[in-house]
């Protein structure tokens, strides 16, 4: 049960984080995972296992594209990059996320709201 809850919680956010990470340039799966972990100062633990289904989902939705490349340890690895639609989606999703956060935090904490 707990397992399922966490997946649901991460569902939308993981996609957004992946898109944001790829905005900086092509990265392979492991790179995406470590990148997210590093930028969140390890506070968000990325379930590496759930990353790949997410990547495939995004690719099937035509938000990212992939091709084989060579990793830093000289292994073949699949590199992902944002497509044009992916970039647009990143912008709209970021806005929606920010709006959501603003609204939710206003509800949760009315005094601190602007």
């Amino acid at each position: 049960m707990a397992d399922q809850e966490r997946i649901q919680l991460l569902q939308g956010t993981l996609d957004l984080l992946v898109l944001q990470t790829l905005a900086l340039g092509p990265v392979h799966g492991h790179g995406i995972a470590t990148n997210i972990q590093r930028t969140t100062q390890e506070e968000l633990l990325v379930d590496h296992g759930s990353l790949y289904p997410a990547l495939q989902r995004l690719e099937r939705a035509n938000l990212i594209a992939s091709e084989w490349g060579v990793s830093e340890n000289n292994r073949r690895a699949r590199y992902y990059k944002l497509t044009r639609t992916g970039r647009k989606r990143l912008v709209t999703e970021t806005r929606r996320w920010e709006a959501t956060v603003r609204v939710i935090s206003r509800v949760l904490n009315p005094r601190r709201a602007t």
Partner: protein
Amino acid sequence: MNIPRWLRWRSHDEIDEEIDAHLALEVQAHLDRGLSPEEARRAALREFGNPAAVKQRARENDPLFRVESFLTDVRQTLRSLRRSPSFTIAAVLTLAVSIGATTAIFSVVDGVLLRPMPFPDPDRLVRVTLHTLPQANATVEMPFAELGFFHLLNNHRTFAKVGGVSVFAGTNGNDEWALTGIGAPYPLAVARMTAAAFEVLGVPPQLGRFPTAAEDRPRGAPVLLLSDTLWRTMFNASPSIVGRTVQMNGAPWEVIGVMPASFKFPQPTVDVWIPFRLDPTSKAIGPPSIGLIARLAPGATIESATADAERLVAGFAEIGYPLNWTRDIITGKAHVRTVKDDVVGRSRRPLLVLLGTMGLVLLIGCSNVANLFQVRAEARAVEAAVRVALGAGRRRVVQLLLTEGVIVALAGGICGVALAYGGLRALVAIAPPSIPRLDEIGINLTVLAFTAAVSVAAGLLFALLPALRTASSRVLSALRAGRSGSTGREHHVARRGLVVAQIAFALALFVGSTLMVRSFSALSAINPGFDASRLLTFRVAPAETRHRDGEDTARFYDTLLERVRAIPGVTAAGATSFLPMTGGIGGLGGPFLATAIEDSPLDAGARAPNSVFRRATPGYFETMRIPVIEGRTFIADDHQRRLGSAIISESLKNKYWPQSSALGKKVTIAGAPARIVGVVGDVHDTAPDAPTGPVVYKPMLDERGGNVRGMAVTIRTSRDPLEVLPAVRGTIAELDPDLPVSDIQTMQTVVGASMSRTSFTMTVLVLAAGIALFLGAVGIYGVMAYGVVQRTSEIGLRQALGADRASVFRLIMRDGLRMDVLGIVAGLAASIGLGKTLSSLLYGVSPYDGVTLLLAAVVFLAVGALASAIPVSRALRVPLIVALRGD
């Protein structure tokens, strides 16, 4: 069955490689942090989760994944089914039998009883008959004589239109008709219908037209309508047939139309319909041979029509119906029923019994399938739990079990359809011709779908129950329970209940079929009053154009019989106007006529019975070996010199001259008085179980002339009767090359056909009971085998603790036998409850026959014991150590 690489969105190798690369990078990162290689790998895996599961989830993203996993499931299922052939065979067979047999039987019932008749608005189409006094213990319904027919036609208030119909040649007819002028004469079944009758039925001809009122009068133009079959076989379905003239019995007839293939009235065998040509102005009574059909007037009901008909029948005495007819035959009661009820009538009960039987078989089949699947699924619960533990999604596991259910169901279904088709063909082949509408029967797709759905649903439901239980995350307990584990008492109870019910149903069927078998053997043991062995029979009817009068015809028969007797291998020959056991008008076995008896000690009022009237030639009684009680049989002088002699049957003699001799007494039938010259034994006329009615035999000619045209020739032979047939045919061809010979058969065939209804019901019931017994045994065996396997370690333990084999055997056996006995008791109760339903189908055996019930109990006890003993003794042979390990 793998999906080709190019169809894949992403190959498995690519997914594997990508994920392996990820892990390698992660391991490298940990190594860089200074962990040992082993620690690094473990840390990477901890972070990543189960790589196999991730890979699987990644694969599941493939759009083709569903197809692929389905194919995998199919492969896996086929493999696992191959590994457990007993389950597979039992399940497929059970499904096939319950789907196939039930569908076949139901298709017959549906075709005969349920489907509407092929007439427009069939519910308003009725047949009217007269109710007669019971003859012996059977009630007989009579058709109308001309006088009564017109009385009803002119005075009714409840019918829209009234028509008359009669079959008078071929099957059930007593005259011979044939197409002539085409080489060998082609025998025909001819029906007469009034012009109105065609309109009452309302089925238009596919070609041509109905007869006109002018053609339906005495001496109207000779016109006829062809049946679809005759049109196709004899006239190559030529559309130009309408307007052509054909020869029937040497006379020209104009073809005015062809009826459609669906038109089979009044019976399917009719080849030709001709106008009835009744004379409405005639004051003659006429023979009672007109079947009255009518359309109910708007607003009229069966009840109001019956009241209307009875009002008119009550007045029959005033219009001049013969006194003894109005008193003896007509009781002032009439039957009005829909044509369908009339046609289906006597077949209803046996067919409904068979339908009920098949319903029971379906029930047994379903509970068996349910049982099999449940046992199987429980055995697989552990496997399912293992799969879940190893990372399989629960949906996948359920899907796998479901796939298995579907595959088995499909296989069973396909075999079932094949069985239904084959079974239906076999059923129609063995069905007695007396079952109406046989040719309308086809596989009923609705029924097929229904039985398939029911039995498949039963299987799937029970396949899924344990799967769902597994899915609801009782993985651990299932794993712990392991192979030796049982899955709870409630399932045992359900399964045992099913087995008990199965045994009960099967036993009821067994009792039913045993009773039918005993009826059949009782029927076969009846002495029909003649010796049916080595008797050849056929019908001939010399044409009016060749043999002008009765004397000429009688001479023809004399010559024919004389020449036949000269054929080597023939020991005797004779002829009669009506062969016993061939049905006849109203099922009476011949014309049923008023008979005046004189010189009887009984008072005058009682001396006017109705008797079956037959003509017979010299040699007939000797050929049939009908015993002579007193006096003599016919001799040539009887007809040649018109001595006015008669021979009566024993029952008639016993009624009127119980103490004294009947010889020399006067009896008047068919308008001519005669002296009794002999008394012969009773003959079972309509069927072996039909009561023997009084019969008066007369020679071919008497003072009133005599109209012997069609006669049934009987020939006794010293070898196989069919061997003399060519010589007999040659003799007939010499005498009259145009003479049609029909209904060629041995007397044994005739007797067999008259019992065909019983033998048909019996065959199907025996089949059903066999199936049920088998399924019941499979049920007990399945449950016992499963139960014993689960108790293997207990058995081992008991033995290890010092129990001897015999006591363990008894312990486990008691379990199986308890189910068996419960089932037997319930089954016996059900049989007794159902006895009443069956009793009208039985002959010479009570539905509560103790011997039969006892036999059934013993058989089922034995079967149950055997089905239990096999798995138990197998368990006892398991080496102790293996049994104790419980695996």
